[in-house]
């Protein structure tokens, strides 16, 4: 099978073209660097099957950075190249185009975002560009699908350029300037109202209040809508329909005994208990579907809106100064926000940071202080019933830890913390269909991951109780838990499950009958002491064994110190 390599600068819409050609849904966002790993798919053009490779976006193939090296190698694998160019920034995109053409592969150029050039007052003579480059140039609009068919058919019959020869870096820039003078006319335009509003979001006087409002709105949206989904959809389904039905079914073949207890735990038709019954078909399904999923949906919907709008890079600018004090820079806000959804993609997204020092700090702070949405949902659920105050205490403690540890790590970790250099994409209107698709794919990913692990977790807990292991473990760990932290011995079960998944671990706190103070301390410890197993392995892979050991040691020390300090502080709060 012949290979087509899809290349282009960051944020030109390569991934959208990839989706159009292959029908595979690729996650795209309105900020550079969404495609960290390459993606492959297949497409059929003129009856022939091709493998399509989505190469991560780079500005050149000079191999001055890891990303450029990867791009160059992947490009060499392609038999045919589709070079995607942002027509609204032709000049800076052409450098990569020339470098690509110099490789003498059959090539087609896609002039993407073509429709945007018109209202930006940019006139491009595509026919002339085609003559100068010596390869087909196809205007496209990937979002609407315009030009994609033509692009595919031209790619099928593409040939290497006869007009572009190998040249030096300097000559290439001169050539770019020459081509631009020949094919592009930019008409002068006045600043539009939209651009004025866009600028207001990066000016500190207006930008900071806007950022606070955006984050507040996001937070309220996630909580309020999430709670509404639980109250009006999930709870009625579980309590009125699913619950009585499943208890009836299980009772019909296992009215009591081991199997009954593992399947539905202590639930009966009269006393349905989804939170504490510890059955894999009651608690095991209620935790992921009834307690966490609603918040996963609202979180990822809101995140997708911010991503596609292009707001995150602006937020990065506003928080840059603050994050420098923690040894990071503004871009670290992106992995941190992703980490609020799930720490795994958050840890992977730290690749956008330049140095090992920044990446170590960003990942360690995230593992300690950024609870994922599944964990947050459970914290809202079990602490919310005692009042918002307790939720506020948990998150304030995590924020204080984030700042104190950042200040400390900046000083003790060796290495560089470079300055921010970030291209800010134009604001784009999010497409409702794309938003729903992204939200759905995240919800699906969550369920595929969470349901088996939560059920496994509950199964393990049942075994631990049945074989009396809980009593032994409780006794062994009671000096730490009871004496130092003031928690019931049974909390050891939650700490053990927390390694597997944090959501079900917090759920394990419920049957212990703790006071709100104890629950608050337990939630802080569960958030900080160790990442879940999935995050642990991603961090291990990204950081290496030595750094991961250091990070883990820090987590344990910080977690138990914070727990003991909070125990003292919370004596004064009731």
């Amino acid at each position, binding site marked *: 099978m012949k290979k087509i390599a899809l290349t282009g600068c960051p944020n030109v819409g390569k991934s959208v073209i990839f989706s159009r050609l292959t029908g595979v849904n690729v996650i795209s966002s309105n900020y550079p660097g969404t495609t960290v790993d390459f993606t492959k798919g297949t497409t059929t053009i003129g009856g022939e099957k091709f493998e399509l490779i989505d190469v991560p976006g780079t500005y050149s193939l000079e191999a001055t950075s890891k990303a450029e090296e990867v791009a160059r190698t992947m490009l060499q694998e392609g038999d045919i190249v589709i070079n995607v160019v942002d027509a*609204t920034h032709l000049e800076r995109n052409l450098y990569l185009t020339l470098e690509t053409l110099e490789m003498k592969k059959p090539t087609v150029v896609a002039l993407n975002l073509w429709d945007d050039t018109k209202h930006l007052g940019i006139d491009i003579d595509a026919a002339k560009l085609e003559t100068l480059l010596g390869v087909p140039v196809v205007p496209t609009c990937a979002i609407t699908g315009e030009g994609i068919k033509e692009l595919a058919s031209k790619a099928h019959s593409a040939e290497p350029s006869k007009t572009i020869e190998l040249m030096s870096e300097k000559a290439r820039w001169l050539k770019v300037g020459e081509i631009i003078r020949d094919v592009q006319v930019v008409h002068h335009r006045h600043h539009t109202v939209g651009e004025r509003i866009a600028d207001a979001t990066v000016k500190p006087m207006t930008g900071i209040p806007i950022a606070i409002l955006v984050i507040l709105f996001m937070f309220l949206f996630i909580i309020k809508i999430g709670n509404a989904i639980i109250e009006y959809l999930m709870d009625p389904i579980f309590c009125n329909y699913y619950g009585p039905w499943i208890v009836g079914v299980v009772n019909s073949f296992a009215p009591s005994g081991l199997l009954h207890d593992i399947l539905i735990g202590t639930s009966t038709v009269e006393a349905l208990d989804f939170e504490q019954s510890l059955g894999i078909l009651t608690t095991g399904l209620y935790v992921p579907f009834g307690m966490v999923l609603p918040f996963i949906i609202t979180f990822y919907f809101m995140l997708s809106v911010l991503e596609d709008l292009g707001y995150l*890079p602006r937020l990065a600018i506003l928080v840059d100064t603050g994050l420098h004090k923690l040894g990071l820079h503004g871009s670290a806000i992106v992995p941190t926000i992703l980490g609020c959804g799930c720490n795994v993609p958050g840890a992977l997204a730290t690749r956008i940071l330049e140095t090992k020092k920044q990446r170590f700090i960003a990942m360690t702070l995230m593992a300690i202080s950024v609870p994922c949405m599944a964990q947050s949902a459970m914290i809202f659920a079990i602490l919310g019933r005692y009042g918002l105050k307790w939720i506020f205490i948990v998150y304030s403690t995590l924020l204080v830890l984030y700042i104190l540890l950042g200040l400390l790590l900046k000083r003790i970790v060796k290495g560089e913390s470079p300055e921010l250099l970030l291209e800010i994409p134009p604001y784009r209107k999010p497409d409702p269909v794309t938003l729903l698709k992204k939200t759905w794919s995240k919800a699906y990913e969550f369920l595929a991951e969470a349901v088996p692990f939560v059920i496994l977790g509950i199964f393990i807990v049942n075994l631990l109780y049945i074989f009396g292991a809980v009593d032994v473990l409780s006794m062994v760990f009671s000096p730490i838990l009871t004496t130092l932290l003031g928690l019931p011995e049974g909390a050891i079960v939650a700490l053990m499950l927390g390694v597997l998944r944090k959501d079900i671990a917090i759920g394990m706190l419920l049957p212990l009958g703790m006071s709100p103070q104890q629950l608050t301390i337990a939630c802080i410890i569960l958030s900080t002491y160790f990442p879940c197993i999935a995050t642990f392995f991603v961090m291990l892979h990204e950081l290496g064994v030595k750094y991961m050991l250091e990070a883990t040691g820090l987590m344990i020390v910080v977690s138990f110190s914070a727990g003991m300090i909070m125990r003292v502080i919370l004596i004064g709060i009731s």
Partner: protein
Amino acid sequence: MRDVNPDGRGVPLTTLLPGERAQIVALGHGSGRQHHFRTMGLMEGKIVKLIATQPARGPFVIDVEGTQIAIGRGMARRILIRKL
């Protein structure tokens, strides 16, 4: 206020005020970074406009031919400009 050095090499980008425009005269960075800047559209002869500066020595937001770039102050200082 002196806008151009006597030798005509220009002044640092950091002397611009929000809303002011200038032409880039030289990039005073290592060759790797210069190359990176050029691929982002920052190169000699281009017109830049300062959109915003962040407080407490935070980054600058500049506009180069319709592309906005956030750049740390240390890096911005080594871009030499001639005010327009």
